[in-house]
């Protein structure tokens, strides 16, 4: 699919710049040019596709559907699925949380949405596709959704409502908000396209710096670190590798844009894929800044339970990935 691009990168680096093939610098530069172009093409495509779905199912509509129908457990899936499609700034997590719970959506379903949203998004999917290929991407997306469903379900069963902060409980006592189906849903596809493209461009622009930095660091590591270098330290047979990776990853915060290009190189140099994925999920899915935001709606005890359950689910999926690959 991207053979033409590899030829282009080869031509640019080896012929135009005249840097010797298979030299360390040549390898690093080639990797940088090839990956950058490939990822930006994929990024535009995926953000555009997700933008189309998002345009037809904006967050208000998702909430409306989740509250207006009986779902018999399927709502965990719906919430996790739409969590992956809806782009939102991490500082929206509190308004979203309250808006969902206040609308009558069960706590567990709301949390499923909050977990899946940063874990799987357009940017992650595009970069994953570019770095690890189609099959791994599908497995990542499916496991991200399943993980959110399971973590949400467990948290829902734990009946954590009493651990919400007081002002949230007060809010929930009042009558549910009058939730009408949002208007502006009758636009034709052609009329939606400009806004979708604009939104997609905005997302790509927002993460481009991180991606460039990530690929640059990845490129350097690719060229200069010998293959199999990490294998000596982290191997598949080490049972503690996954939990340790998750524990290190949880307090860190980065978006996937910056971290995945580096992940690819780590995999290439011998760290098992599952361990790397568990680490990146921990970095993007849970973080101290997010915890501080959620502190507004959750008591410390609930926050700790939330982090523990999600972290545990990430560890388990890390092991599963290592088993599959």
């Amino acid at each position, binding site marked *: 699919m991207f053979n033409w691009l590899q030829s282009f990168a080869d031509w640019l680096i080896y012929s135009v710049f005249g840097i010797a093939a298979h030299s360390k610098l040549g390898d690093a530069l080639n990797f940088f040019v090839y990956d950058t172009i490939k990822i930006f093409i994929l990024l535009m495509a995926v953000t555009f596709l997700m933008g189309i779905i998002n345009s037809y199912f904006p*967050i*208000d509509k998702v*909430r409306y559907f989740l509250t207006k129908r009986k779902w018999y457990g399927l709502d965990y899936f719906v919430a996790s699925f739409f969590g992956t499609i*809806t782009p*939102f*700034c*991490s*500082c*929206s997590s*509190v*308004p*979203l949380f*309250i*808006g*969902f719970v*206040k609308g009558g959506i069960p706590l567990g379903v709301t949390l499923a949405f909050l977990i899946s949203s940063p874990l799987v998004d357009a940017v992650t999917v595009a970069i994953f596709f570019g770095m690890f290929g189609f099959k791994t991407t599908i497995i990542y997306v499916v496991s991200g959704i399943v993980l959110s469903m399971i973590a949400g379900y467990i948290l829902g069963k734990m009946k954590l409502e009493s651990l919400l902060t007081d*002002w949230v409980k007060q*809010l929930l006592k009042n009558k549910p*908000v009058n939730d009408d189906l949002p208007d502006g849903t009758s636009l034709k596809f052609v009329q939606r396209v400009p806004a979708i493209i604009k*939104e997609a461009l*905005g997302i790509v622009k927002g993460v481009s710096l991180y991606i460039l930095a990530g690929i640059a660091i990845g490129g350097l590591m690719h060229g200069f670190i010998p293959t199999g270098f990490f294998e000596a330290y982290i191997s598949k047979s080490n049972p503690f590798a996954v939990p340790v990776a998750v524990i290190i990853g949880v307090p860190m915060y980065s978006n996937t844009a910056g971290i995945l290009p580096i992940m690819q190189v780590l995999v290439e140099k011998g760290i098992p894929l599952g361990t790397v994925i568990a680490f990146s999920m921990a970095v993007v899915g849970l973080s101290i800044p997010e915890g501080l*935001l959620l502190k*507004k709606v959750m008591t410390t005890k609930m926050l700790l339970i939330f982090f523990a359950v999600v972290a545990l689910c990430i560890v388990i999926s890390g092991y599963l990935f290592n088993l599959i690959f």
Partner: protein
Amino acid sequence: MKDIKVLGPGCPKCKTMYNNVLQAMQQTGIEATVQKIEDIEVMMQYNVLTTPVLMVDGVAKIKGRVADVNEIKQLLTT
């Protein structure tokens, strides 16, 4: 006189939105009161789901994304 509110808990996107509103007002010369609402408890009274939100005269015009200066100018002049 229009009544403009920018709702957002203080993330970079919300600040950009607020600055864009101020610029749009300057460029169009429209008179309006501008409020930046950062308190989440107050914000929830407006039933928002994603931030930043731009409200003009009590109606949420833009939700969950940053609007550029030109778009805000259009919103204010029509």
